[in-house]
């Protein structure tokens, strides 16, 4: 019985190949977008994990030099002799022909157990590491090192991207830094009764292990990507839901016949579930493969974005990872289950003698639209409540979900209203029929149009967010990068020398005095600034009090970044404890986009009083002729080229990062919109098969097949236009939530929203074009329907 019943069920797909294709393709596309994003996230996380595992980043407390960049090896020896369980690390850039590589030297004998490349757990490799001076590196780095180092390079994919590992002695030699170290890793268990750090090594400062700000930022970036992937998946699931519902509806008569012929209901449901699981696995496998391609194409741009925005290294090439492969397959099965649950439930409850009339799916009553509308209203109320009272990233995403799902659910009601309005104004019989028929088609096309609504709104929302970010960031760069040149110095002597030179050569000097400290419980960069025309003319405040710069210059006030203000909940007028003997009122809040740390600005004098040993490590220089000054500094004063960076290069680099971000979001936007267009195409094609009985009478009454085809095309474009016009305000609301809620919760800063009407107009045009292209084929097919097929509708013997 089971094989026979299964043959009958499967024969439906064999005879309705387009429907089968729509289901598999819809599910595969949905899975592809989801698993593509997951692949990118998995790759990035693996890179962070590799960095943490091989370099100890974020895992262990560390000792860093209080001033300067290096620790003398004798300090390390003193600590070891005093009983401190510390392990030395040296880091530096090694130039190769393919660019520079971050070389990290470790001491495997003292390093905590979890810090080691996988390959080194093999004793023979450890032996090589210690005695023969081998290097470990990921494949691309190993290739870059060929010919640069004389040591053997062992390829180990588990090493963090862009990094080579070696024994500390080898690294010191390669970096020409014998006798110096960069940092010391503190083992988690230490002997009791250790002498204090201040006694043994007063030049070092202990940095506790913590989740770095970069981790939080990259997490937010991945969360945003995941949300985008989920949205794309939802769009794909609309297609699958539509196809499965239609297929089940068309198989009602078969189900009734099978049951009448003796196939028990539970067997039928079991067979249908098995059938769907097999399809889901098949589509899931295709989707995961497609997702791999999407991820492989996008990953280099994502890696560049993460590196540029947050300084996180991510491998630019993709590896097959079981977690996203499994996650892709699982989401395909779950998505199919979700899409089919309603149809299976209806089947389970369908009486054996129920009507087998196909097409009931497409002729759902207006009552359903009102019910969905009521549900949407409820979601909007919940969303409104979250917007007013909700706090936290999860609730911010819940607000997004309420907004998007609510908008999708209310769409059929709005479309019915719009079509009804048009119907009232129709003057000729043909247009009256057209609008009445369109109203009847709305339920059948609803799912595809919901997909279009979500895809277009996501496009508007995400591009508004990214573009607003770009506009804001460019303004921000103009403020912060006002100096034409930036000069980096190596040590105190050079710092004093450069400042002396600049006093005669530059229009204005901005020494950048800074130190990393903790203010109001927030890790903060404290700056000492020389207040001059540059600060006064260029810096814009988010919130300020009168005479900000005068008060800062006199040491009577401090300026803080938005991140510090939000995290410490201290605003203008509040007093900020900078140190035990320096408490200043906050005079202004400034934006500081892209920085995970807080920022506080005090006068140069106040800073030097607090940190008399610190000298400026870099200078901003105002000049009327940056090229000439640059040439003079290098030619006459012997400053190396690499120590001078001009403003335009930094700006170009920063904007380049945004272009990369645009590439990623742009590609995802286009893919999501393409999936929505595919949803419309599939809905129209599948609906076409049950449209003939509705169109035949109109044809018989005198409308040509060509005219009917044209009207079908117009219908698709009109519905797509109404949907797109509704998607634009929805997308702007989405952007508002992203910028005003998600951004504040995730990053700690709020961004102003900018509108881009040109982009929205182009997007509307693109959506209409996509809808028209999707409708073209079904319209042509309708125009070419043989009269014999139309006549069959009237045949008595059918």
């Amino acid at each position: 019985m089971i094989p026979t019943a299964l043959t009958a069920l499967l024969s439906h797909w064999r005879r309705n190949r387009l429907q089968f294709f729509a289901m598999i393709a819809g599910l595969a596309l949905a899975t592809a977008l989801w698993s593509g994003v997951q692949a990118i996230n998995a790759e990035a996380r693996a890179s962070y994990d590799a960095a943490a595992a091989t370099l100890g980043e974020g895992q262990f407390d560390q000792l860093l030099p209080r001033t300067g960049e290096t620790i003398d090896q004798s300090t390390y020896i003193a600590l070891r002799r005093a009983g401190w369980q510390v392990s030395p690390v040296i880091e530096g850039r090694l130039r190769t022909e393919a660019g520079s590589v971050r070389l990290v030297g470790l001491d495997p004998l003292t390093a905590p157990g979890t810090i080691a490349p996988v390959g080194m757990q093999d004793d023979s490799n450890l032996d090589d590491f210690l005695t023969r001076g081998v290097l470990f590196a990921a494949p691309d780095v190993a290739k870059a090192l060929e010919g640069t180092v004389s040591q053997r390079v062992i390829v180990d994919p588990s090493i963090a991207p862009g990094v080579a590992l070696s024994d500390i002695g080898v690294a010191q030699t390669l970096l020409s830094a014998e006798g110096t170290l960069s940092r010391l890793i503190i083992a988690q268990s230490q002997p009791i009764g250790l002498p204090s750090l201040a006694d043994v090594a007063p030049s070092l400062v202990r940095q506790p292990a913590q989740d770095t700000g970069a981790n939080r930022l990259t997490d937010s970036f991945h969360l945003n990507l995941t949300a985008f992937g989920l949205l794309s998946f939802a769009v794909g699931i609309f297609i699958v839901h539509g196809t499965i519902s239609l297929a089940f509806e068309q198989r009602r008569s078969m189900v009734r016949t099978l049951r009448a012929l003796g196939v028990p209901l539970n067997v039928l449901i079991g067979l249908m579930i098995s059938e769907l699981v097999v399809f889901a696995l098949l589509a899931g496998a295709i989707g995961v493969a497609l997702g791999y391609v999407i991820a492989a194409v996008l990953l280099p741009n994502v890696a560049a974005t993460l590196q540029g925005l947050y300084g996180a290294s991510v491998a630019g090439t993709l590896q097959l990872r079981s977690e996203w492969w499994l996650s892709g397959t699982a989401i395909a099965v779950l998505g199919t289950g979700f899409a089919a649950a309603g149809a299976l439930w209806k089947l389970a409850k369908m009486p054996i003698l129920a009507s087998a009339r196909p097409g009931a799916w497409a002729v759902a009553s207006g009552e359903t639209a009102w019910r969905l509308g009521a549900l949407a209203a409820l979601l909007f109320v919940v969303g409104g409540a979250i917007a007013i009272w909700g706090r936290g990233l999860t609730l911010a995403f819940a607000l997004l979900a309420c907004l998007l799902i609510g908008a999708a659910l209310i769409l059929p009601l709005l479309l019915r209203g719009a079509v009804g309005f048009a119907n009232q104004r129709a003057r000729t019989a043909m247009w009256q029929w057209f609008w009445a028929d369109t109203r009847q088609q709305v339920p059948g096309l609803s799912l595809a149009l919901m997909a279009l609504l979500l895809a277009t709104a996501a496009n508007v929302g995400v591009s508004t967010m990214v573009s607003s970010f770009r506009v804001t960031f460019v303004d921000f760069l103009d403020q912060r990068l006002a100096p034409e040149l930036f000069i980096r110095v190596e040590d105190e002597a050079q710092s004093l020398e450069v400042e002396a030179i600049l006093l005669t050569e530059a229009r204005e000097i901005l020494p950048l005095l800074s130190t990393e400290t903790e203010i109001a419980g927030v890790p903060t960069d404290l700056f000492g600034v020389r207040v001059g025309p540059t600060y006064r003319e260029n810096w814009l405040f988010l919130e300020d009090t009168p005479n900000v710069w005068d008060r800062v210059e006199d040491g009577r006030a401090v300026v803080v970044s938005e991140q510090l203000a939000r995290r410490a909940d201290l605003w203008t007028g509040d007093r900020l404890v900078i140190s035990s003997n320096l408490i200043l009122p906050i005079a202004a809040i400034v934006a500081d986009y892209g920085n995970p740390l807080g920022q506080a600005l005090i006068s140069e004098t106040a800073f030097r009083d607090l940190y008399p040993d610190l000298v400026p490590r870099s200078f901003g220089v105002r000049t009327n002729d940056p090229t000439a000054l640059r040439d003079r500094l290098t030619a006459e004063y012997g400053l190396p080229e690499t120590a001078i960076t001009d403003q335009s290069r930094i700006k170009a680099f920063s904007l380049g990062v945004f272009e990369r971000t645009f590439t990623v979001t742009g590609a995802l936007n286009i893919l999501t919109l393409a999936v929505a267009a595919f949803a419309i195409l599939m809905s129209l094609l599948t609906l076409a098969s049950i449209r003939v009985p509705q169109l035949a009478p109109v044809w018989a009454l005198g409308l040509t097949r060509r005219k009917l085809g044209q009207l079908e095309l117009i219908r698709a474009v009109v519905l797509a236009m109404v949907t797109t016009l509704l998607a634009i305000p929805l997308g702007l609301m989405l952007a508002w939530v992203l910028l005003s809620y998600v951004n504040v919760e995730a990053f700690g800063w709020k961004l102003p929203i900018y509108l881009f009407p040109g982009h929205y107009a182009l997007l509307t045009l693109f959506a209409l074009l996509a809808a028209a292209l999707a409708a073209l084929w079904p319209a042509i097919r309708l125009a070419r329907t043989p009269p014999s097929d139309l006549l069959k509708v009237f045949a008595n013997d059918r």
Partner: protein
Amino acid sequence: MVLTVKDVTKSFPAADGDVPVLRGVSLSLERGETLALTGESGSGKSTLLHLIGGLDRVDSGSITVGGREITTMNDTDRAALRRSDVGVIFQQFNLIPSLTVEANIAFQARLAGAFDADQAARLSKALGLTEHLNKYPEALSGGQQQRVAIARTLTARPKLVLADEPTGNLDEATSSEVLGQMLRLVRETGAALLIVTHSQSVARRMSRHVNLSQGHVV
């Protein structure tokens, strides 16, 4: 006795309370016997047929098919009964549109695990379907589709054939021809036939005739 129906009642819910459709119907059918069930629209003919086929449940009374009481059977057992002992021919043919004519004919017998290729070939030939075996139902006329439905039922060799207006959708000449073929083949397989019909000419060709009126046998 292939079929025994005793004091069967059935009503359907309506807005103003339950509407009784069958009010204590009794009848029986022996092997090889053919019975026409006639009556005005709404007299309960199709309802009685559905109850006998185990497609619906009685409110009270008893129905036995091949000596087995079906009113106490669960859904799975009644489905098994339909696979093996009862064949139902519908007015709307109820063929599986995605299977070929040949696969449709073999379908019920295969479900019952009793497919006999010779029997299927013989019935196909007898019903004039040989040249249409590879076609799909949509390519056939109504008369041809009903022949496929008859072949499907008889290939499974059921003890009892239930036919609900099997020629209701066919013209007079086709109807007569299809009915003649069905009666001949039912006799050959030794099954009992219960046919629901409005047509007196169809009823006259059966060995017995029962008229239902307002839920009673009259």
